């Protein structure tokens, strides 16, 4: 970037590269949570038959040892193994082996993030690949019983066009305004959500930034200020101007290619940010220029914005301060989210970012998370259609967030009408989050992700964190490419707004819609099983 406009960036540090290579990044915990438990009884005669038959490496006898070690439970694919000739339980001469479901499995996960989805995300972060089908994880959806979890793609039996994986373009362009500002393209249709320093540790923030560099996408600082250590990744950082204006300076605005105005957050729409006092450690207080240990509430709304015209003034101010920056406007999803989106567009924003009611957060009142504003699944179509009707759909980038958990959710959000998505919780899960919801209180995250406590932060190191996210992104991209291949689409951009490719399990799905192409003639459609997998791939 040697051609930066004058007066935009006074200080610049050399930018760091991060390689886009998948490398194994094993769990940082000794015991992985397993779906099945393998139990070996005292009848075992240590004949080694199980060692021979198991194709998954569950059993292990270290060389020089007579006895078996603890089985690697998490590698076991469970009773499904009975059909493939590798079933140790059936082949054990002494019937000393037993496989049963892990009772602990029930304690993991929740409706939105089922235990299968958590484990599958961990596997993806570990290997960079979608988990092998043998494991039978139900990771395309959660169990929430609505929205994404009830939407399925209608895959044709044969893709209408045969495409190789490398022919498929997953990049999206973030500047559609053609206003002379840089044309920024990201290689994958998602970027990392805003997580402030304070809500998460700096290792987490930097891991996100480095993964964004590797995948040529973005991460966002959140509203807690811009760490100096983030500077080598400036070109892949979005800095947030939120209602609290914590750590926002002209100089930090000048560092980045995208500046985001955060009006509201899906988990607590209409309430403003919230950092509980316990997490306001000396480092955080310094960054946010506040007093140590007090709870930090961001106001709602911006006290300088009471109309779209005021919003425009804000945008003009940032556009003036940073002549190369694109502007993103992050809003939540009220009934009139469509008006908000068009209003933001007319105020000059490049990216409209809508954050649905079930979005993630470091701390929010439970009553707000559950009840305020609509889920993102409804909002995407509403905004997409309204922008289309107003004739501005192709002049603004629509980004959706708030409950996007997997590559399938990403594809569904795009098919509903978004250009791309923002992900947050999924990244934290990749870093080892179990969704215990304890990010808010005390010293913060017991798993060392969403905390600024020096001892807890030490549980994770930067290279590992980076690698986990690079792997997750890689697995997602592969899955996404797979979906596009099966649909016969050459790019994610072609998928946008293709609601004709979707079906909803709670509906009759019998409306004649759109142009009949080979991809959506019902007779050529294959019914999907309730779990959303085609009867046969």
């Amino acid at each position, binding site marked *: 970037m040697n051609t930066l406009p004058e007066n935009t960036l006074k200080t610049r540090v050399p930018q760091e590269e991060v390689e886009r290579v998948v490398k194994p990044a094993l769990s940082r915990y000794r015991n992985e949570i397993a779906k099945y438990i393998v139990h070996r009884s005292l009848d075992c005669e240590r004949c080694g038959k199980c060692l021979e038959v198991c194709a998954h490496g569950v059993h292990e006898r270290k060389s020089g040892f007579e006895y078996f070690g603890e089985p690697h439970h998490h590698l076991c694919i469970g009773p499904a193994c009975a059909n493939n000739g590798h079933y140790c339980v059936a082949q054990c001469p002494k019937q000393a082996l037993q496989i049963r479901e892990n009772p602990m499995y029930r304690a993991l996960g929740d409706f939105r993030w089922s235990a299968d989805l958590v484990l599958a995300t961990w596997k993806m972060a570990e290997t960079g690949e979608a988990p092998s089908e043998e494991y039978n994880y139900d990771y395309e959806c959660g169990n929430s019983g609505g929205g994404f979890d009830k939407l399925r793609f209608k895959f044709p039996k044969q893709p209408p066009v045969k495409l190789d994986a490398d022919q498929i373009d997953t990049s999206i362009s973030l500047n559609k305004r053609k206003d002379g500002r840089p044309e920024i393209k990201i290689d994958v249709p998602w970027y990392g959500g805003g997580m402030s320093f304070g809500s998460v540790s700096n290792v987490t923030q930097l891991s996100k930034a480095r993964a964004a560099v590797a995948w040529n996408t973005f991460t966002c600082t959140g509203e807690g200020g811009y760490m100096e250590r983030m500077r080598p990744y400036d070109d892949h950082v979005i800095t947030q101007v939120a209602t609290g204006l914590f750590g926002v300076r002209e100089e930090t605005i000048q560092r980045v290619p995208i500046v985001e105005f955060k*009006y509201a957050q899906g988990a607590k729409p209409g*309430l403003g940010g919230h950092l509980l006092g316990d997490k306001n450690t000396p480092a955080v207080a310094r960054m946010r220029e506040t007093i140590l240990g007090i709870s930090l509430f961001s*106001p709602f709304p911006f006290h300088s914005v009471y109309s779209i015209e005021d919003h425009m003034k804000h945008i003009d101010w940032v556009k003036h301060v940073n002549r190369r920056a694109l502007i993103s406007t992050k809003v939540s999803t009220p009934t009139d989210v469509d008006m908000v989106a068009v209003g933001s567009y007319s105020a000059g924003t490049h990216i409209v970012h809508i954050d649905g009611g079930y979005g993630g957060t470091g701390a929010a009142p439970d009553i707000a998370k559950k009840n305020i504003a609509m889920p993102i699944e409804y909002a995407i179509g509403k905004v997409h259609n309204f922008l289309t009707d107003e004739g501005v759909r192709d002049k603004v980038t629509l980004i959706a967030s708030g409950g996007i958990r997997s590559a399938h959710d990403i594809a569904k959000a795009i098919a509903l009408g978004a250009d791309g998505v923002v992900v947050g919780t999924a990244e934290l899960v990749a870093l080892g989050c179990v969704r215990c919801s304890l990010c808010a209180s005390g010293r913060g995250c017991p798993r060392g992700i969403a905390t600024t406590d020096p001892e807890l932060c030490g549980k994770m190191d930067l290279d590992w964190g980076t690698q986990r996210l690079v792997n997750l992104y890689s697995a997602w991209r592969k899955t996404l490419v797979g979906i596009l291949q099966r649909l016969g689409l050459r790019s994610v951009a072609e998928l946008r707004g293709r609601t004709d490719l979707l079906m909803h399990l709670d509906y009759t799905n019998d409306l004649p819609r759109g142009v009949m192409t080979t991809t959506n003639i019902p007779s050529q459609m294959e019914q999907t099983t309730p779990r959303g997998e085609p009867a046969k791939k």
Partner: protein
Amino acid sequence: MPEKYHIKTQPVPPRRPRIGKHGVVDWREDCARCHNCVKKACVYDRYKQEADYIRNLSDVDALFFECMGCFSCVQNCTKNILCLSINPAYEKLGNQYWKPDIIKTTWVQAETAKIPVSGAGYRGPFSGLGFDSMWTDMSEIVRPTRDGIHGREYISTSVDLGRKPSYLSLNGTKSVAGLPPLVSIPMPLIIDLSSPAHTLPKLDAAIEQTAGDTGLIAIMDSSYRPADEANLENIAFYLGPDSPPVPDAMLKKTRLVEIADSPAVAERIREIKKIHPQIVVAIRVELTTAGIGRAIELAGQGEVEVIHVVADANGNELMTAQKPRFLKDMIRQIHTTLIEKGVRDEITLMAGGGIALPEHMAKAIICGADLITINLPLLVALECHLCDSCRPGTPCPARLEKIDFKYAVGRMTNLIAAWHDQLIELMGAMGMREARRLRGDVGRAMFFENLEEETFGKLFGARKAGL
């Protein structure tokens, strides 16, 4: 500006062991006795607390269930001998409608008086039955709130009970003719009679004091005699078909009274007004199949000021052979019919039954009630499990018969304070500054069936029957 409504609270710890969601099961026989045992590394120091707790154990059936469920010890144990599980006692709390998480969050609020705050996104199902099939709205740039909840403006939660004339009539040319009496309470919540199954005489004095401390009103049976006459302002006697009468002198000190529905309500109201002209009279209408019709019929009658509709404890229609309708839908029907009849402001609508969480209060008001009534949440605040085995001879798991007055008042007051704060959160997000204006404002809510129809109905045809 009037003084800000504020409820004084202080933490009231539970009497009984907390029933948490998670517990760690520990297979000690394989333990390697590591020096750096994971138990020492618990971020919440629960193992130490558990040991201390067991050492001082006074109750035989009391287990320690305060594990936070982070899996850290389970995943780090060298011998892999720890296992996290869901506490079966937790899963047994409550019932189909009063789910364990409702009971749990009520306990926490009764203890701390704080708004429950947690990290990570919403964990529950996409939508659900009853109140879970609607979302409240929020204000955004194009329809901004002047100021959020932490702002300088006062969000008022006061509501008035009584008739609100739609125009003023003048006596001759000068003075305004006598305005009907109004009762103002600082929050749209009234404490209802306990259902016979959950009545505990010992509780009444505590309920009376809670109403007094919070400035709200508690509906009490007419046989009840307050411990403190100063609280009479905060008591509304319920006069059932065969309740004993309340002495006139005592009735005169109250502001609200509730009577059972009967064909002779108009007469009954006149009798009461003769004794105490400034009193507001509410009529209790059970939401049976005929309940909605009856509420609408009553609203047309000149004497009727307040109608109190009551569904069953789970918010369902009473005594119906069909699939019962839910409170929210019944309120909407009554409210819209009254608007069509042009009598909505002639009466105040109180709604009770099935209000289990503070969001239900806001949602019932959005659907058209002026205020709501509760009783079970206050019982749950006292650590009731809603186990429904309140029979003589069956021990109460919460030992409710042993509660003391200060504890009960403290817990119930804390719960009401937490509900009040959460109502303000929702109203702040909606950009509403007046609970009175929230009534019937369905524009500040989004209903599941409408959103589905607008979004997915257009794309995917009809919603399958039976869902």
